[in-house]
């Protein structure tokens, strides 16, 4: 499994309240997801770059929102595999 880019700023971090080993991290390089509590990470290829903030819906964890540094909001309804621009 791949990992996060080394020594890069991680601007945002979010863990699933219902399954805390599922985590997201946002960097300028893009968004990454871990399913093992942060041991390994994989890039979410469909996610935008310049990720500034990520939030997992507290009761519907397959729903994830992502904000870019430029103020664009994206929504995923499949745990980060696909993203749709909201604005």
């Amino acid at each position, binding site marked *: 499994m791949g*990992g996060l880019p080394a020594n890069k700023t991680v*601007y945002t*971090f979010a863990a699933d309240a219902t399954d805390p080993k599922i985590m997201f991290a946002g960097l*300028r*390089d893009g968004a990454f997801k871990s399913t093992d509590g942060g041991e390994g990470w994989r890039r979410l290829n469909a996610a935008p770059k310049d990720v500034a903030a990520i939030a997992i819906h507290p009761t519907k964890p397959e729903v994830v929102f992502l904000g870019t540094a430029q103020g664009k909001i994206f929504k995923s309804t499949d745990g980060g595999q696909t993203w749709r621009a909201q604005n």
Partner: protein
Amino acid sequence: MESIQRIERSSHSINRPRPPTPGRWRRILSIAALAVVIALAFATLGEAAEGAHDIGHLHALLVSPADGILWIGTHNGLYRSSDEGKSWQPVKIPRDLAAMDFMGFAQDPTSPKVMYVGTHNRGVLRTTDGGETWSAFSTGLGGLDVHAMAVDGYNPTQPRRLYAFVMDKGLYRILGDASDWKRVDDGPSNPDVRALQSVNIPTGMGGIYLYAATSEGIFRSPDCF
């Protein structure tokens, strides 16, 4: 006691492993060095938003569990959206608390109308009515440059733990219904903390972990401060 050890390895000399992080905080990742640095990504840092309802440079995002309202903290202010981010309404902040940058949110897990936001130059603001009114909540903080916040309400038998990371000052905490912040830790050795979150993964010592996103990756610490 730390189950996840620092596992950074790199073939690039510029990314050779750093000395272990002192204290309780441990780097938990950053395995692969990228072959290409995406300089263009950095070129956009600090720019104001265009075509995004002028919400500006974005720092923080929160989904409220009760009503699905999205909240964002930006360089230009605090906004909320009731249509999943398609449109945004500015949130009124008292003039004496107006802050240029809203950096991070925390929401009470049992009372979602109680929210906190850390700001770049006005400390912590709190609302107890779902964002209609806000007031200062910074008593005891060592500084007003709050870069990240987190809340732990996972264990109903323990008082809620509210955290704020103050730049150059360290990690502060409020237990339960107290109103004074207490400094509890230095935080990660890299002080440029961008986000905090309590994660309900048992440490084996009766607590859970506090994760921190920083300019050198992600760190975590047992929350036995």
